[in-house]
């Protein structure tokens, strides 16, 4: 069964199932992180992706193993969508030796070199030029691989964002910039931070084609990303995607915070009504879906069990890796 998507792309049932699985899996992992969080077994602050999964999933669905992904401290979704290890991620949050960063990074810096997840910075926006450096290396090596780098609406206020755009365009680097615009930096709304919302227009003046997806539609995101990625593989320069989205939970931590007064639950409700996990779930055959859901739960249980039973780092690990050999 082929499904006609608003974006005019055509995806078959396998595609839909794969995308659903990825969305659902991330959602459930994050929910489980939130559930476990109060037990204090997670030893790291957590910036959950719940509600924003469609962006990572939509973009990364079209990337291959050799392609590169960089994200921010709110980077669980991108890490997972790229196929990096779930047990290693949970173990990292648990501060265990088996973590993807060996217990030395924490949830804000997830890395998976084998899957080309290049790590993340907790200093907003500062991973963007690093991603451009990866793109430069790919280009110099005549690779057809590309880089996708994710960041929030706060990151575009940092000067380094503009410096990076200019350089990436000047050198026609294969890097797709993706702004996950959830309208807030911590509790501060765009209105207090952005002079205007003409972001795509601005990025375009750097000679970078820029598109905006206002409704969180995973297929639109995927389709636009696909166009950019194809262009980049053909030697074109960078692309830019602004995706409006919504952070369902608090900025950091497991809970909701609609009582804090800085935003309204009614805004959440609009986004819940448009939830891509539920939407895609509805597009998958019930039996298949149940099967997928079960597998996800099993994978999650196993991952948390793995983290739980993993050894803590040896004290000497405090001193290793200060310098590389």
């Amino acid at each position: 069964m082929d499904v006609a998507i608003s974006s005019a792309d055509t995806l078959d049932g396998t595609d839909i199932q794969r995308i659903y699985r990825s969305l659902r899996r991330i959602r459930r992992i994050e929910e489980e992180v939130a559930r476990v969080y109060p037990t204090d077994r997670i030893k790291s602050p957590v910036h959950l992706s719940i509600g924003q999964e469609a962006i990572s999933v939509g973009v990364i669905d079209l990337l291959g193993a050799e392609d590169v992904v960089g994200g921010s401290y709110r980077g669980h979704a991108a890490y997972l969508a790229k196929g990096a290890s779930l047990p290693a991620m949970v173990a990292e949050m648990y501060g265990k030796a088996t973590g993807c960063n060996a217990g030395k990074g924490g949830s804000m810096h997830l890395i998976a070199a084998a899957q080309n997840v290049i790590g993340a910075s907790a200093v907003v926006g500062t991973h963007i030029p690093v991603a451009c450096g990866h793109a430069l290396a790919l280009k110099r090596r005549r690779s057809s691989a590309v880089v996708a780098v994710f960041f929030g609406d706060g990151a575009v206020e940092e000067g380094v964002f503009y410096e990076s755009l200019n350089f990436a365009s000047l050198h026609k680097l294969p890097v797709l910039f993706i702004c996950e615009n959830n309208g807030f930096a911590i509790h501060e709304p765009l209105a207090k931070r952005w002079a205007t919302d003409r972001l795509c227009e601005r990025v375009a003046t750097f000679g970078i084609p820029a598109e905006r997806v206002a409704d969180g539609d995973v297929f639109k995101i995927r389709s636009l990303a696909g166009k950019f990625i194809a262009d980049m593989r053909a030697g074109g320069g960078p692309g830019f995607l602004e995706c409006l989205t919504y952070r369902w939970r608090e900025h950091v931590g497991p809970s909701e915070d609609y009582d804090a007064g800085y935003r309204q639950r009614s805004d959440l409700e609009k986004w819940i009504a448009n939830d891509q996990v539920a939407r895609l779930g509805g597009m998958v055959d019930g039996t298949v879906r149940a099967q997928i859901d079960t597998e996800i739960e099993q994978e999650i249980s196993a991952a948390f069990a793995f983290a739980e039973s993993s050894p803590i780092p040896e004290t000497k690990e405090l001193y290793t890796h200060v310098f590389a050999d």
Partner: protein
Amino acid sequence: MSLPTDGVRPLKYVDALREAVEQEMERDPDVFLFGLDVDDHKAIQGSTQGLLAKFGAERVFTTPLSEDAMTGVAIGAAMAGMRPIHVHIRNDFLMLCMNQLVNIAAKAHYMYGGSVKVPMVVRSMIGKSWGQGAQHSQALHSMFMHVPGLKVVAPSNAHDAKGCMITAVRDNNPVIFVEHRLLYSTESAVPEEPYTVEFGRARLCSRGDDVTVVAVSNMVIECLRAQELLSEIGIHAEVIDPISLVPLDIETIHASAMRTRRLVVVDNAWTCCGASAEIVARVLEMAGPRAGIEVRRMGFETTTCPPSPWLEAHFYPNPSTVAKTIHSMVRGTDAEWEPDPDRVRLAYQVQFNGPF
């Protein structure tokens, strides 16, 4: 240093900061407070609570995530005669505005031949625990100490936090105001009235003849606890809190070290080219070769701060490691001694569970 005693009540560090800023903003309409999140409901852990309501959005406002330009804005406003207080929620983020601080703020008064002043305060917090790790746990004050033209203060208790903040706001120079997250909830006796804590005058926190301990910021608390542990076995540590690092009251430290002949500097930071290096070097330059002062520096381990608590536990000096270091200096390295772990655990500093 003025120490009024009327209207004194126990107050938390975080509230002392807030009160100081509130009183200065009342006193002087040129004082304003800005920085990411100063106006939200969390109010920088409460340290800016109520100020928006009281002074309005022209004097209390958040900013875009643009630390570099915002620092320049503070400098310009200060040169124009205002008195900005610029807040960063993390000390680590100061790396984004080093150029403005080092190349402009520190130098403006000098390179403009004295024709302008830059009265601004840069607040930022040092993080610890909760798995914040590499980029949210640094304490980079020594970089600012290195550059002539910047003042650097790191009050360790609520009383000094309020007094230093008032002094900082009234100072005609850029003041880097170093706060430690774990100090926020600590209480001390704080007068209601505005008062100043003079920069360049160290505080003697405990008297002792066996060793001089200079402790910076949060380490004052850790060292006082170590001092307690040691006093139980008859070792008497003189704990000195320099309060301000630039200017530095080296005379008080030097005089104490000349008496005790042992100097331990415990910084809440790395030691290499740190405040601890400076204090040790300066004391020994002053003391001369015949003083026979034994010196030791303690600080962050020479590594990156890991989030995993089992590793992080060894990253910082703590009452036990400080006490043991001092014990071995006083009683010799052969003398074995392990402070009672239960008593160590009683230290005020329980594991911090966030939020940031």
